[in-house]
């Protein structure tokens, strides 16, 4: 229904414009067009001001500081959590080194002769179980491990790389405070799990295969060579997976060093990608596609194979394609990160220090990067301008509606009053002072005796219309004729009603019929013809 009505109104305006071309524009359309012009000129002015102050270019500029702040926040957060874990790893290494050395001594052994006592290994590991679980529960790690540089069975074919190990994973590193850690044994003697009520993981192995994790061997070798304190020897592994496991992790590793300097194993904490994701996924609702990376940096390349990723799965580079990303200036406010033959990303990065300046690994560079697919960035930028343009369009529609409303509201009573002027009875008020004045003026004008006025009359020679008028007098009924005659005598409607003893309404009815039969539209026209009749009568008399 509103649609129909809308179409009708549009049709009316169209018709008015069409007629306007021929007869001039009606009042309502004139006012409507004037208002539209006025309101939209103001709107255009606003638009020009917005253009001139660069609102439409602001999207890109506006996102950079927001992302910069986010990046600073995540970098600080990662620096703090990884730093804390590094410190805890160093402390753990010191405690474990001392505890294991003491225990070995009690059993008549030493760190240097660890491999000579394979039967002691399980006992050594079990003795440190509480320390490890306690450290894990206090940390923000997803796992803890202790690896001894010895194997329980040196006779086995793979004994060269096999090492006694106790590796515990916290299945819920994001645990709610107050709940006990949900531990699983990933590597270690089964007896320890059974004795302590710890379940194993499906990928459980009794010992750890060093060949699968070269960083352990490298770290022990480095510790033997460099003779640095624990705090200068810890190292963060690149993102990797444990043997038989698909979950990506990073390990903070510290060598175990006895008081005589013997390096006899490693220990450390694990940060799983799930934990990293739960802790560092960008949470801003404005940036759905944003993700966070902690990645090793090599010249101008992010080595994704060693990175941890936090973000929605749909947004980031898929795990199988983890390779590398070339960093280049994106030509705008953001860097461009390009995976070979893959999607490119826009974002920012900042180096994060995982080691002290004098660490053995101080030259390893890591960055925290916040990025999103270019497509996502473009959507964000255009979204703002789109909203602005949409807003202006809506404002324009509102302008049209208002113009239509105001023009209608304003012109309607004027038009009605003008219609009213055509009516014979002009006594009613229109409540528009100017029109009411005009009505009064016309009424007064009408009240003047027609004969006494000098009016512009039809041509002295009776016209065809006049003759037609005279002929039509014969068609009047008797009652109408008596009313007509009284008009001819100069009486007003009210006087005629009194003379003929009729009501004013009956006189009005007679009037309508008289107008119709004599083909006149108003009393004024009727009076003109009556005056013509008198003039013609006088002329004829003069002629005679």
């Amino acid at each position, binding site marked *: *229904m*509103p649609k129909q*009505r*809308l179409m009708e109104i549009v049709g009316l305006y169209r018709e008015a414009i069409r007629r306007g071309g021929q007869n001039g524009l009606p009042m309502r359309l004139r006012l409507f067009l004037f208002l539209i012009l006025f309101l939209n000129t103001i709107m255009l002015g606003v638009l020009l001001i917005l253009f001139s102050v660069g609102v439409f270019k602001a999207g890109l500029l506006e996102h950079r500081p927001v992302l910069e702040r986010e990046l600073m926040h995540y970098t600080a957060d990662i620096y703090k959590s990884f730093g804390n874990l590094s410190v805890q790893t160093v402390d753990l290494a010191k405690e474990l080194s001392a505890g294991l050395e003491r225990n070995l001594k009690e059993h008549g052994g030493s760190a240097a002769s660890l491999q000579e006592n394979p039967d002691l290994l399980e006992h050594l590991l079990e003795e440190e179980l509480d320390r490890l679980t306690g450290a894990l529960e206090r940390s923000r790690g997803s796992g803890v491990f202790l690896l001894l540089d010895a*194997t*329980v*069975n040196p006779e*086995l074919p793979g004994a060269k790389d*096999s090492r006694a190990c106790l590796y515990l994973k916290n*299945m*819920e590193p*994001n*645990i*709610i*405070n*107050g*709940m006990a850690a*949900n531990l*699983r044994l990933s590597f270690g*003697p*089964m*007896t320890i*799990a*059974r004795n302590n*009520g710890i*379940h*194993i*993981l*499906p*990928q*459980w*192995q*009794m*010992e750890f295969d060093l060949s699968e994790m070269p960083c352990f061997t490298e770290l022990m070798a480095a510790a033997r060579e460099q003779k640095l304190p624990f705090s200068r020897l810890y190292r963060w592994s690149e993102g990797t997976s444990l043997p038989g*496991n*698909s*979950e990506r992790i990073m390990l903070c590793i510290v060598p175990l060093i006895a008081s005589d300097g013997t390096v006899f194993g490693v220990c450390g904490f694990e940060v799983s990608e*799930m934990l990293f*994701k*739960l802790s560092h*996924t960008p949470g801003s609702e404005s940036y*759905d596609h944003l993700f966070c990376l902690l990645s090793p940096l090599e010249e101008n390349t992010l080595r994704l194979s060693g990175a941890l990723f936090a973000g*929605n*799965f*749909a*947004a980031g580079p*898929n*795990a199988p394609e983890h390779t590398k990303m070339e960093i280049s200036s994106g030509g705008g406010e953001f860097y461009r990160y390009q995976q070979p033959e893959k999607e490119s990303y826009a974002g920012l990065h900042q180096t994060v220090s995982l080691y002290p300046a004098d660490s053995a690994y101080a030259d390893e560079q890591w960055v925290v990067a916040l990025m999103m697919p270019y497509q996502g960035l473009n*959507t964000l930028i255009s979204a703002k301008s789109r909203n602005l343009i*949409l807003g202006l369009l*809506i404002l324009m*529609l*509102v302008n049209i*509606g208002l113009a239509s*409303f105001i023009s209608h509201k304003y012109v309607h009573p004027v038009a009605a009053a003008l219609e009213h002027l055509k009516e014979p009875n002009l006594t009613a008020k229109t409540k528009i002072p100017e029109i009411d004045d005009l009505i009064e003026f016309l009424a007064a004008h009408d009240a003047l005796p027609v004969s006494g006025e000098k009016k512009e009359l039809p041509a002295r020679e009776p016209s065809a219309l006049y003759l037609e008028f005279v002929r039509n007098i014969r068609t009047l009924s008797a009652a109408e004729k008596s009313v007509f005659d009284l008009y001819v005598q100069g009486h007003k409607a009210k006087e005629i009603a009194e003379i003929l003893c009729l009501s004013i309404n009956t006189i009005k009815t007679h009037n309508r019929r008289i107008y119709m039969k004599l083909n006149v539209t108003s009393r004024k026209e009727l009076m003109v013809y009556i005056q013509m009749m008198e003039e013609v009568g006088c002329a004829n008399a003069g002629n005679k």
Partner: protein
Amino acid sequence: MKKKYIIWTVLLLSVLLSGCGQTKGLNPKSPVTITLWHNFGGQMQATMDEQIGEFNATIGKEKGVIVSVTSISSSAALQEKLTMIARGDPGAPEMPDITTCYPATAMLLADKGLLAPMDGYFTDAELMDYLPRFLEEGRLPDGKLYVFPFAKSTEVLFLNQTLFERFSSATGVTADSLATFEGIADAATQYYRWTDQQTPDISNDGKAFYTADSFFNLAQVGMEQMGTSLFDGEKLRLNTPEFEQIWNTILEPAVRGGYAIYDGYSSDLSKTGDILCSTGSTAGVLFYGEEITYPNNTKEAVEYAILPYPTFEGGKRIAIQRGGGLAVAKSTPEKEKAATLFLKWFTAPEQNMRFVASTGYLPVTGRAFTDHMEREISENSNPNIQRLLRTAITVHEEYDFYIPPVFDGFNTISASFEASFLAITEQRREQYMESLKTMEPDGAFERAANGALKEFIARQTEGR
């Protein structure tokens, strides 16, 4: 006239609001993120991650839905967190949009109006394809579907075929005899004796043959197999001849050493060759692997046979129905729609079979069994999964599922049953070993078993 202006105003406002407001439907340009909690760790996590990633990259991207995993917990811890939410405990986390959930927990959440029933989001035709028993378990007492079938499992018999063949060729015990619990009990007694004989200089050091992940499940199913129920309302029915038969079948091998008395997963014992067979969830298949490790770190490649759940002699073929489903939190229509979109995609046969094939859960739709199973069996690279899927077909065709009852105290009864059983059998086993020093085995057993059932019933009655 006024009417006309009102219509115009309404029209104008509706135009404005439609421009500014959000639509209730999904919009790929403005994706809705739904959070998911699940309890699939380890290798199962990789499968979940992969499938969720695929959803997000395909249909999720197309429709505007991003599934984000915000917690991976053990099943028990996850249910505990959900219970905290249902009870409104201080420090309870925020309810996720989708969570793996058991009917008992779902009931708590639904009572608080925290779950969205899913009937309205699925057509009858869509629901028709899901296995009726699985849907039945997800319907709560108000008749609405709150727990959508997704990771359903049953129990089967895992048999270390490699070690069993050695035992079988020496003693003549065949795998067929393991079809009944009585057969398993006999085989266990013989296995203990046979392994004891391997070390003639050490007496009574035989090895256990069997254990169950849950003796409580065994008792429940056993009672159903014998045509009765372990429950009378919310109480246990233990003073029955059927339960006595179950008790006696288990107790003797447990006391004599043929059954391992172990408070943990049976697969832990299997991985070190400490038992030969066990009944446990199909979802435990990944824990068995293809090798066992002995205490000196030597490893042996082994093959497992996966057999349907044993029955008590003369009993019907009934196996337990386990596992949970996915529940959707009551939320905005947009989020509920997004969550059910994910459920539909995830449980569709193509996706469901991939999950099944890498986890050991059962397919949840009829079409998965009829159209996809054979191909999956032939293509799967894990022999244990292949065997499991074959057995799943047998169970699907020949077994009826027993659905444990749902009531508040169920978990407490279950825990108490297990604890009492382990405590009594362990104590009687010690008594038996002590008696062996002075008595013959049969006499020692008679003495150790005396009054054990009574004690067990008393413990259950007293709630100890």
